[in-house]
């Protein structure tokens, strides 16, 4: 207990050891890193200003000036794809973090205390799992207005139930472990036990689910963007696809490239999540990729 940190680092080393042996997971990690670089260095990497409107509209891909062509307003698609990474990553990661914080808190309290608290919180969780969250997000955003902050908050507030369930089941197991029992004997407070003693041991699972949640949040953000509910002042991949829908016959490139970007981003986070999942549960090693979907369905299976 006193040497949590060294225990953590050996745990991380172990996970990394398993993780890096997975080709797919490593490929995912490389793509994630590339998207990160794209997002951070967008102003340097993008050949054009993504908002700059010109008369050169619907230019087909392959010209030196516009490698991926231009859209209906003569904007450079490559530059927009690069800048779009910012919104996707920002929303994906921050929404996942928001959901994770809520999920950890509720799941930990629920699993640790049990009883009526657990019952009540699990009913609420069930309620949130029952309301189709994309539909709810659509309603909320379109009624209360869009903007990147709202996107993050709404997606975050709608993506905690899966996390809460997993964390709860972890706490259910951990609370009867000897190290928790002994902590209680020496008079540690419940809060200390929940957040300082148990939490680090649950973290690997949390990171797996949070990574997969990023992928889902990116998809959700793109879906909202496709319904025209993205932030109108920022470039987003979903918004680009929404625009492309009206010009499918005239400019296929408006659809193909942002769609590829979304798919790659989602794919890479899923691959990393799967890899982490297997690395943290070495018993899954023999099965190849496996039970990430049980996490996606909120650990219900």
């Amino acid at each position: 207990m006193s040497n949590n940190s060294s225990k953590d680092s050996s745990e991380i080393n172990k996970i990394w050891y398993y993780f890096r042996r997975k080709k797919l997971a490593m490929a995912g990690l490389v793509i994630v890193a590339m998207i990160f670089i794209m997002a951070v260095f967008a102003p340097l990497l993008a050949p054009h200003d993504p908002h700059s409107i010109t008369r050169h509209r619907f230019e087909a891909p392959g010209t030196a000036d516009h490698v991926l062509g231009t859209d209906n307003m003569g904007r450079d698609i490559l530059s927009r794809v690069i800048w779009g990474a910012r919104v996707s990553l920002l929303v994906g990661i921050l929404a996942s973090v928001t959901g994770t914080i809520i999920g950890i808190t509720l799941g930990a309290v629920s699993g640790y205390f049990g009883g009526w608290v657990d019952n009540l919180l699990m009913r609420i969780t069930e309620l949130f799992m029952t309301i189709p969250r994309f539909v709810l997000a659509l309603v909320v955003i379109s009624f209360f207005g869009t903007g990147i902050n709202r996107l993050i908050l709404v997606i975050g507030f709608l993506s905690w139930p899966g996390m809460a369930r997993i964390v709860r089941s972890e706490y259910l197991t951990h609370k009867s472990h000897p190290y928790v029992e002994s902590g209680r004997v020496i008079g540690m407070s419940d809060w200390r036990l929940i957040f300082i003693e148990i939490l680090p041991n649950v973290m690997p699972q949390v990171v797996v689910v949070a990574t997969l949640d990023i992928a889902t949040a990116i998809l959700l953000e793109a879906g909202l963007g496709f319904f025209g509910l993205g932030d109108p002042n920022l470039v987003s991949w979903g918004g680009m696809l929404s625009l492309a829908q009206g010009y499918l016959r005239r400019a296929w490139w408006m659809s193909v490239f942002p769609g590829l970007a979304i798919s790659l981003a989602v794919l890479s986070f899923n691959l990393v999540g799967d890899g982490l999942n297997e690395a943290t549960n070495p018993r899954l090693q023999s099965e190849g990729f496996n039970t990430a979907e049980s996490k996606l369905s909120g650990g219900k299976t």
Partner: protein
Amino acid sequence: MSKKGEGRSLGQYALLRIAQALPLIIAIIIINFLLINLAPGDPVTALIGEFPVPQEYVEEMRANFGLDQNIAVRLVRYLGNVLRGDLGFSFNYRVPVLDLVLNRLGRTIILMISAITFASIVGISLGVAAAKWRNSFIDNFAVAFATIGYSIPVFWSGQILILIFAIWLGWLPSGGLQSIRGDYFGWALIVDRARHMILPMLALSLRYMALTTRLTRSSLLETLNSDFILAAKSRGVKSRGILWNHGLRNAAMPIITVVGFHFTFMVAGSALVETVFGWPGIGRLLYTSITARDFPVLLGILLVVSVAVILVTLITDLLYAFVDPRVTYD
């Protein structure tokens, strides 16, 4: 759920689950109602057109739709109505909400069922093949397909399908429910509608196909390595028999899982797919109702969809119990 229980009957279990679902439904109604009613914007302005009208007309409309009452009165009235099966009257379409929603729901369900069926057939076949010939080309293909298919947004795969099959090849219509001109009857109508449904169905099924492939493969691998299969093998049962008798019984589980636990994803997916293909189902209704701020219809859709999710979850649990003898009802 998998605890050894004291043996309630399936019927009792079903009743219990329904009783548990009721408070959930009421909670959903209340949340939806508050959320939508507290939102900014006045639904009456949507109805008057593009020129100014007398203020009295606006007041009259407001009174007509009960919008002049306070929110608590409206909630109680709404709850009462819903329990009597009356979901209100659409501002926008001027028909009972229930009729409207049910009419559209049918088309969405047709789309979903064909997507699920198609996804299951392809997904299970691929999953079984992958498990049988482990590490072969087909296994690698299945793994790649499952991973990629799961990550592609439905609205993009929809657009790509339109590009390929409607625009470049010209084989299939790019959207809509049926051909506009011509009175189709009988077979011609069915064939015509089926042609219109192929692309949206493909787009919607991709994600589930990926999931089913993945789940079938992994659960089969798990089963094939399990003790009772090894025992069966040792008794000399042929491996093909094992695959079909034991394996597929277990493969039923992934489908149930996909349908049951991803039903809410499917609702979202079909809303997007319906928008891409102009399919006049509940997803499109949702979109037009959001734009028109048709509160009663939105409430109706959220309610009907949530009830559908609860029902599907319930049926899934019961099927689980039915298919897997290890599960008992508690």
